[in-house]
């Protein structure tokens, strides 16, 4: 069981937290764990960059780019081939005919790293245990060229409806949507080649989109960590020996990231792998991904946790994200 990490906040930090609407605990923890707290908070107080991902399942990517530019969109390439940063939009990017036709979908660059790490291949069986609204599922379907089978789980009926709608809009025909908790994946008869656990989390990395996350209390970290642990266990049970499991979150909390990974290494037949070179060679805003923390509040974690990675808003020009890639031990 993961206990929340308590870091006392200095009086000056408390004043700063009050001024920006954060709980004391959050800023104290970030100051302890991550570089340049001032830069981080400044980045979180500015509107996040917007990205889109071109969908080759429905349209030629170059044609889509040309059409959007002709409509007045200014798009800049990123380090990921199909991912473009929206620098200027004459109107809402989600209201174009091309969006409605599924020629692209809106997805932050950081979120696209999870499926890059998972690296699904055509013909495989892949599970997405917390799939709604479907951006990562669509990305996986693209990588699989609409072959193989993708099983996308979400327990919420309304979110699952949105997931189905997005998959249909983007022309995905290799996916089934299950209105069930991702833990149900352990009951599937056929083991998966790859499993994605993009886990529900406290969402500190997306404060730019949801400022309510500024006032998290310590109990929320532990609650999310419990759910994440259950999903990791179910994912491992559903994974074939030798299969790949990618665990990701959009939070900065070590309880949900490195400590969760360390617990998985101790309790599950998983070992950590380095991320694919497409990610280790990646430069976002000129910087590599930040390695996972191996020293968390005085607790020394296994050195291989440095194979996990973070994006941070003030370093990488995208939302905060964490990912880890595991391989299930052979039987």
């Amino acid at each position, binding site marked *: 069981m993961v206990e929340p990490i308590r870091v006392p906040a200095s009086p000056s930090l408390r004043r700063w937290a009050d001024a920006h609407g954060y709980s004391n605990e959050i800023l104290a923890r970030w100051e302890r764990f991550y570089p340049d707290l001032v830069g981080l908070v400044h980045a979180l107080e500015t509107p996040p960059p917007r990205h889109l991902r071109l969908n080759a399942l*429905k349209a030629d990517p170059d044609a889509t780019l040309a059409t959007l530019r002709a409509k007045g969109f200014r798009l800049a390439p990123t380090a990921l081939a199909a991912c473009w940063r929206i620098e200027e939009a004459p109107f809402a990017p*989600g*209201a174009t*005919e091309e969006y*409605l*036709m*599924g020629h692209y979908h809106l997805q932050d660059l950081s979120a696209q790293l999870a499926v890059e790490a998972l690296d699904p291949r055509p*013909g495989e*069986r892949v599970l997405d245990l917390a799939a709604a*609204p479907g951006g990562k599922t669509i990305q996986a379907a693209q990588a699989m060229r*609409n*072959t*193989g*089978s*993708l*099983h996308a789980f979400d327990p919420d009926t*309304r*979110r*699952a*409806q*949105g*997931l*189905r*709608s*997005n998959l*249909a*809009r983007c*022309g*995905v*025909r*290799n*996916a*089934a*949507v*299950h*209105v*069930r908790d991702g833990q*149900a994946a352990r*009951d*599937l*008869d*056929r083991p998966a080649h790859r499993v994605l656990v993009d886990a529900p989390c406290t969402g500190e990395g997306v404060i730019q989109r949801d400022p309510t996350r500024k006032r998290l209390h310590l109990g929320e970290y532990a609650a999310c960590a419990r759910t994440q642990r259950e999903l990791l266990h179910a994912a491992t049970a559903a994974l074939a020996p030798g299969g790949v499991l990618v665990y990701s979150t959009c939070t900065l909390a070590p309880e949900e990231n490195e400590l969760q990974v360390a617990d998985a290494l101790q309790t599950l037949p998983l070992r950590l792998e380095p991320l694919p070179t497409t990610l280790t060679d990646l430069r976002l805003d000129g910087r590599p991904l930040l390695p996972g923390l191996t020293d968390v509040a005085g607790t020394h974690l296994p050195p291989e946790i440095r194979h996990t990675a973070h994006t941070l808003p003030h370093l990488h020009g995208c939302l905060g994200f964490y990912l880890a890639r595991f391989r299930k031990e052979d039987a």
Partner: protein
Amino acid sequence: MRRPTHQEHAQVAAAFDAWTPGLLGRLETVHAAVLLVDENRGRLDLALASAELAADVEAAPWDMPHAGLPLGRLVDEAWRPSLEAAALVAGWLADRVLTLRSEAVQPFLYGRALRLRDVARQGPRTAIGHVHFVTDPQGRVLGLARRTGDEAQAVQPVADLGWYLREGG
């Protein structure tokens, strides 16, 4: 969802043939996919799925009603295409296409009925009372509409891409 029986597959194929001969087979071949069906209150819901997904659906420990790409449904032995099916087949069915003038695209995507003069071109098999594919001037599918005899509301939307914004979630 499940694979259709031989009889069901023949029924669906016949319904697709009414649009153009061999349409279902062409869909399955071009996309290397298979038909899935689901009985739903006297009608048959249709989907197109990868072969591997179809195999998983058949081996599944629970029902999987949301598998594959929705193709529409069979009602009274007639095929009612989905938006997604329209995107796949409209290019093969030019004779059943209504091409809109550019200024009519947005109103159509808001679900509004259009006048006959909003239609720039119509295929030779378009007919009053029948459902047709609707495209923009570039030939990209916007939805489905019924042609009526009312000049002021000659094109009645049946399904349009704007649904994804209005209700798709």
